[in-house]
């Protein structure tokens, strides 16, 4: 077994025992990066001159990792997988990445995403589509596609991701790994290219729950450059992982999980929901109480549109700094209006332009109340609904999506109305800023599927504890993606 396919603590042990060196790990990781790049196109940049660091008592010291390319990294190309920033080399590093550097982590590559995180397929980055390492005919999902692909294939034990709707947790499920976004504000967003600021979260993709806790422990912390960050210095996410979960209460939502709700359900969806029920059974075996709760279907069915309205509105504004005047490849024009127009017309993909138009439309004076303010109201209702569940339960457990990764060919970033809520419910985690983790819970058609656990704000430890215990009773911990033809 290769070292980089192990867990962080195992690699750390090996480094301390000098059975392997940081240099060897980096070399191995870079070789693997090139191999994975050829096969699945996961990287924007591979840092062939990455330097080893001193191995200290810090668990992540000397160990290579990947960074999603929407994190600002000093002196390293940071594109957001967009042509608008195809030549942008920042002069500062995102706080959370800097926190990892300070503990000796070694960045070896920058991973591909859907342009600025605005997509769920991993197909809209400016360097091309990312393929699923379990079956390259399928997608990784997005937007943290490259990070998910690289972690799943054992390029390193972890890569950073960002999550505005489900951009960490969906690709984690499709690639058979762990994806965790902590409570909003636990990790500073300073240096993360914004998509929708009120929904954007930093987070991580790993192959086991403990690694996720270790990495976020290092990334987190109050940052004077991010007013929404909060002091979590008293929180050690690794400490409570192994706590007994007996008596903890989990809720799942009937309207999402009951196969009878889906009139045209195909075999995959049936299998996915049955598999979910098997996972619930494991939870009970662990001593947890699992209960079905009901949520108004009308509310559930408005999750996706609420997300579209809010995220597009914020995105339109957040990306107004992309004019090509200060940074990015400047375009010619008779005047500044033309310069900006030419730059944006040429460099943004059609998908993003569509979202900008939606965002502008919903913010226009005559539409604002009907769309933007109503979306805010529904966001509040949904968050209140989830908070109400958290009054009686420790966490909500739900299947991720409607099954495994769809085929790349013929895939549309479009939603089937009957399964829309099941596909998009993870967005509630962003509406409320809830801690939320996806772990693998099985295979369908030789492709991995995942289950998600979401808790109330500031209850990250409990969410990780449940995920850790559940993971230990299933067979997917530390699995490495391999193609089954």
């Amino acid at each position, binding site marked *: 077994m290769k070292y980089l396919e192990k867990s962080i603590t195992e690699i750390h042990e090996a480094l301390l025992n000098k059975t392997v060196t940081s240099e060897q790990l980096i070399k191995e990781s870079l070789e693997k990066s090139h191999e994975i790049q050829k096969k699945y196109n996961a990287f924007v940049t591979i840092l062939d001159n990455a330097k080893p660091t001193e191995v200290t008592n810090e668990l992540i010291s000397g160990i290579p990792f990947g960074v999603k390319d929407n994190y600002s990294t000093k002196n390293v190309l940071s594109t957001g997988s967009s042509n608008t920033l195809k030549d942008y080399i*920042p002069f500062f590093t*995102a706080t959370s990445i800097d926190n990892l550097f300070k503990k000796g982590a070694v960045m070896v590559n920058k991973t591909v995403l859907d342009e600025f995180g605005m997509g769920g397929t991993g197909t809209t980055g400016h360097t091309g589509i990312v393929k699923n390492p379990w079956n390259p005919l399928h997608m990784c999902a997005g937007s943290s596609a490259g990070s998910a692909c690289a972690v799943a294939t054992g390029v390193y034990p972890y890569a950073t991701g960002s999550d505005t709707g489900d951009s960490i947790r969906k690709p984690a499920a499709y690639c058979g790994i762990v994806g965790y976004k902590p409570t909003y504000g636990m990790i500073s967003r300073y240096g993360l290219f*914004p998509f929708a600021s009120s929904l954007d979260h930093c987070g991580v993709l790993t192959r086991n729950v403990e690694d996720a806790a270790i990495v976020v422990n290092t990334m987190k912390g109050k940052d004077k450059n991010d007013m929404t960050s909060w002091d979590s210095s008293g929180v050690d996410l690794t400490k409570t992982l192994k706590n007994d979960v007996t008596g903890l209460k989990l809720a799942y939502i009937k309207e999402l999980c009951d196969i009878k709700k889906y009139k045209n359900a195909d075999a995959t969806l049936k299998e996915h929901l049955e598999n979910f029920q098997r996972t619930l059974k494991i939870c009970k075996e662990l001593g947890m109480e699992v209960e079905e709760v009901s949520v108004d279907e009308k509310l559930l069915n408005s999750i996706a549109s609420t997300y579209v309205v809010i995220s597009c509105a914020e995105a339109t504004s957040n990306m107004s*700094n992309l004019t090509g005047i200060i*940074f990015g490849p400047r375009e010619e024009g008779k005047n500044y209006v033309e310069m900006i127009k030419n730059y944006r017309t040429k460099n943004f993909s059609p998908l993003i332009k569509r979202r900008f138009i939606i965002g502008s439309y919903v913010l226009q004076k005559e539409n604002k109340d009907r769309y933007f303010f109503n979306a805010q109201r529904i966001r509040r209702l949904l968050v209140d609904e989830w908070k109400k569940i958290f009054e009686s339960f420790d966490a909500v457990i739900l299947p991720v999506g409607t099954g495994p990764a769809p085929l790349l060919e013929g895939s549309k970033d479009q939603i089937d109305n009957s399964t829309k809520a099941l596909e998009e419910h993870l967005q509630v985690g962003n509406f409320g800023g809830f801690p939320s983790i996806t772990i693998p819970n099985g295979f369908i058609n030789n492709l991995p599927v995942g289950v998600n656990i979401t808790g109330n704000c500031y209850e990250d430890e409990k969410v990780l504890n449940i995920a850790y215990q559940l993971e230990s009773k299933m067979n997917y911990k530390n699995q490495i993606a391999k193609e089954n033809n």
Partner: protein
Amino acid sequence: MKYKALIGIEMHCQITETNTKAFSSAKNSYTIIPNENVRPVDMAFPGTLPVVNKEAVKKSLMASMILNCKQPDYIYFERKNYYYPDLPKGFQITQETKPAPVGICGYLDYYVNDEIKRVRINNIHLEEDSASLDHKNNASTIDYNRAGVPLLELVTYPDFRSAEEAVSFLETMRCIYQYAGISEGDSKKGQIRCDVNVSIMDEDIDETKEENWGTKIEIKNVNSFSAVKDAINYEIQRQIELKETGTYDEMEQQTRRWDDEKQETVYMRSKVDAIDYKYFIEPNIPKFKIKQEWLDEIRGLIPELPNERKEKYISKYELNKKDAETLVKEKNISDFFERCIELGCEAKEASNWITTRLLGYLNKNDLNINDIYMTPEMLTEICLIVKNGKISTQQAKEVFAYVLEERKTPQEIIKEKGFEQNSNEEEIIELVNKILEENEQAVNDYKNGKTNIIGYLVGQVLKASKGKFNPGLTAKILNEEIRKR
């Protein structure tokens, strides 16, 4: 006149008295070196986030209190979205009227000549300034020093009836900002900029009913008080001419700009082309509660304002109203005056020196009181030396002028120029007797009862002493000596 004008003002004033910018850690200070005070957030590099400067909020709340406004329970900021090269983010962080900005529903009493007037304040809000553009022949340059400087915008109701009232209000406000330690209020440095709105209506119609108001014309970018005056007068005249020629009703609601060179307002855009700024709450700045204790603390910090000082000068120091007004007009001058009194100078003396000689000198040379060599200590010294009879009032005026011109202390000047008054009695007696002998006729006249001849004789002695004799002492000795004859 058959018409009356309704005039409202939007006054933008930079908060200059904070260390850093409104949402950035860059230094907030005026500099002529381009792009000196710039941090990544000021140029909107991807991933940067705004951080509220608490000191700027504090000063804004103080301004809100001085303007008798209502302060909000929570502070929010909003994004005003539009593209312009001087706006790096593509939006300005500002405050709209909903949710409430730092102040609403206020008023201010101010004087026009001797008449007290009240203007109602619609709102006052805190926002960030834009970068400054400089248009050359073939290119434009952008200086980001100004980008992000805290800016207070206050919006009045159209309560002014003349340019004179509007300008008196602006002068009062500038004065208040200076006294309260909010702004230097220097128009030359672009720290104050105004938008003006003007409408006219028939003299005999009730202006308290809004439906009677004429068409509102907004004039943008009026950047000095004299321009405010000229723009208002020009616009009133222009609108009257439209009335007189019967074309007033065709005039649409519009935005114009003031052309300083041509001395006229120029059409910019119609109301129907008004920009939709697509306001929404800035998601990167969490709303924060304003505690009553904080408001109380700020209220306690409001210093003595110009009107209070003026009253004090009249009642306590017995100055006349004109001098009192002159002294308080600029805080620096008033502070200079108060310092002199603290040092033991008589109020009337100090006032005379400052309002005549000192201000005369400053105006003539277009200087600020802080730029000159004369300090309150030096002026007080001059006053005290005169009082002690060491130099004459006439000599003091010369010393005063020399201090300013040669940048030397009064003592140095007195020594160098030989201004020391001679009070050596023996020398005076000797010269007095010499003069008495030379003026036998005058002495006889005196003895014959023409006692007012004394003045002439004292004058002769002083002249002969080349002005060095102490006049009081000389008069006393001459009286004694003449009686001996």
